[in-house]
């Protein structure tokens, strides 16, 4: 699926000799893409690893130059993103006008990814001249220097056998007149936007030193209707809001979805048959099954990081405790908590060894950490107010949560409960979910009075806050890992 383009710098850890690839600039490498060829320095596909920083850390550390260590400096980089070129304008199912028009769309998606997330100072293809196919590997430096662009993105798109698309993406430093990084991908035409997100991820990762996150999806609850009779449906979308799809029809109230680490399933709560129960929905087959056969209400379903276990909360005679059961069906649930208080929700540490959860055993909702087997339960929140919906960052360094202090605000703290700070300040923000790289948090905001809900996101500085475009009201966002 993925292959590295020729890179000018050794620190991109290419397995293939860089010189060999640089030797053939214009007819790039669409001839060589062997689908499925494992790219060096990348996590193996099919594993939940991409959400974690470990595999790529060598690349970023080795690849850092002076500018990326200063966040403000890289944030201010001007990046020109002209239309992607095509070797031959030809029909493609991805765009009714052909591959040339698709090249324009690809650049627009990249531009919007960066702009909407407050990253860099991008200029999009609608305001820029269009490079030729040959210029993709040999930029017209004078043109871009004249536009005072510090960074330049070039790319190409080709339609090949079976309508499959090959997309290449290059990032150039205009002042140095050097290629910083290049990569290519092959996708089915329906997945063309993923190529753009991959390119945005490549640019972002190379310039910021952070792990990628654009090529990912979000499950959430779509809300319509009056406040006292709201219809709540399971829905999914790409990280930029595109490819929106409703999964359930709204006849039964749906809540609190979670994508499986491999994106094949969604856990969620449904009032199907009148009572709240957690189900696992298989995206491929459209079938769903009860996670636990039991007379008791089940809620707050979560995947373990390896996708093999499901953690959930179940009320027995009014008292809610946290359990774990095998995700493959069958098996006896293991009870992890046993307090007379309400123990609810939870989130695994990225290595799966610990769980953060909420409990009102002390008299009010507070956050606790325990080992994955339920041992060593200890409270971590002592900063006043209530601590709810804790969510462990994929990087492991922070826990996002809802701080209930009259208003509901999204905050972060360390796994030991230190360094608490708010990321939002509104009437009601709750249920944070992390971007795959642990740099951005999404949550949902409820309007006072109307009860209208919408999904928002904010970065860890708390400064770049924005609302996501969804077709109807939206709550309970659940951000999945980088797509396998």
């Amino acid at each position: 699926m993925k292959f590295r383009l020729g890179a000018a710098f050794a620190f991109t850890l290419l397995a293939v000799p860089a010189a060999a690839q640089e030797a053939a600039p214009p007819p790039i490498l669409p001839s060589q893409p062997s689908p499925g060829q494992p790219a060096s320095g990348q996590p193996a596909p099919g594993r939940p690893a991409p959400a974690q920083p470990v595999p790529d850390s060598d690349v970023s550390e080795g690849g850092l130059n002076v500018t990326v260590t200063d966040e403000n400096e890289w944030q201010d980089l001007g990046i020109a993103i002209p239309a992607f070129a095509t070797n031959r304008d030809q029909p493609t199912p991805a765009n009714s006008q052909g591959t040339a028009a698709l090249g324009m769309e690809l650049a627009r998606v990249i531009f919007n990814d960066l702009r909407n997330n407050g990253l860099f100072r991008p200029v999009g293809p609608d305001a820029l001249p269009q490079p030729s196919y040959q210029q993709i590997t040999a930029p017209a430096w004078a043109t871009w220097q004249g536009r005072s662009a510090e960074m330049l993105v070039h790319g190409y798109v080709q339609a090949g056998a079976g309508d499959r698309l090959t997309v290449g993406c290059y990032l150039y430093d205009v002042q140095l007149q050097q290629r910083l990084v290049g990569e290519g991908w092959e996708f089915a035409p329906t997945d063309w936007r993923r190529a753009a997100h991959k390119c945005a991820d490549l640019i972002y990762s190379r310039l910021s030193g952070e792990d990628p996150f654009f090529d990912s999806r979000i499950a959430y609850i779509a809300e319509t209707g009056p406040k006292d009779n709201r219809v709540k449906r399971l829905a999914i979308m790409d990280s930029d809001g595109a490819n929106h799809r409703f999964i359930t029809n709204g006849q039964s109230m749906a809540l609190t979805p979670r994508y499986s680490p491999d994106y094949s399933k969604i856990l969620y709560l449904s009032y199907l048959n009148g009572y709240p129960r957690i189900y696992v929905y298989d995206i491929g087959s459209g079938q769903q099954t009860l996670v636990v056969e039991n007379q008791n209400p089940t809620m707050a379903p979560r995947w373990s990081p390896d996708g093999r276990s499901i953690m959930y909360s179940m009320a027995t005679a009014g008292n809610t405790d946290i359990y774990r059961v095998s995700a493959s069906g069958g098996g006896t649930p293991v009870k992890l908590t046993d307090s007379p208080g309400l123990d609810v929700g939870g989130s695994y540490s990225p290595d799966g060894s610990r769980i953060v959860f909420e409990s009102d055993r002390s008299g009010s909702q507070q956050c606790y950490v325990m080992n994955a087997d339920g041992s060593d339960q200890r409270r971590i929140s002592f900063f006043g107010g209530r601590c709810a919906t804790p969510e462990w960052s994929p990087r492991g360094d922070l826990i996002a949560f809802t701080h209930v202090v009259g208003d509901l605000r999204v905050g972060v703290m360390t796994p030991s409960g230190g360094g608490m700070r708010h990321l939002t300040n509104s009437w009601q923000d709750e249920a944070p979910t992390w971007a795959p790289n642990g740099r951005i948090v999404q949550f949902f905001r409820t309007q006072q009075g109307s009860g209208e809900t919408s999904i928002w996101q904010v970065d860890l500085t708390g400064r770049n806050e924005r609302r996501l475009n969804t077709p109807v009201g939206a709550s309970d966002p659940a951000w999945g890992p980088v797509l396998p």
Partner: protein
Amino acid sequence: MNRYAVALTVASALAISACSKKAPEELPPTPQAPTTAPTAGPAPAPSGPTPGSQAHFAQAMSGQDTIYFDTDRYNIDSQDQSALQAQAQYLSQYSSARATVEGHADERGTREYNLALGERRANAAKNYLVSLGIPANRVTTVSYGKERPKATGSNEAAYAQNRRAVTVILN
């Protein structure tokens, strides 16, 4: 019998007012049509709820089908007790009726915790009914958390209305 009389009066009044717009002189024929229907007996029963049904229960309870809670609390206070006693009395009288207690929370909490809290409140109400002699297998519980508010405002008066457990007869 009283209820039939009311229904008849309303029907007549409607018939008369409807007629009066067209032909105010022709009063005799119209009132006769509705009189036959109610006297026909049990078959149609226009507005009187069937004893033992949810509609009948709600009417008989006149508000005591619902108990209210303080923020984060689920204790049954004396006011709740008298309401639950009235419910238990009804359930004893209609011994084939099965009920579910719906637990709710106000909007000023997080979604999942409120689901657990609503379940705890519903169970507190159920346990009290059971302590009054209602068999546990006749009463189920369901929590809606904060998802089904009764009062739609965002103020303390609305929240007080929404922190509730409502007993509903399952038909």
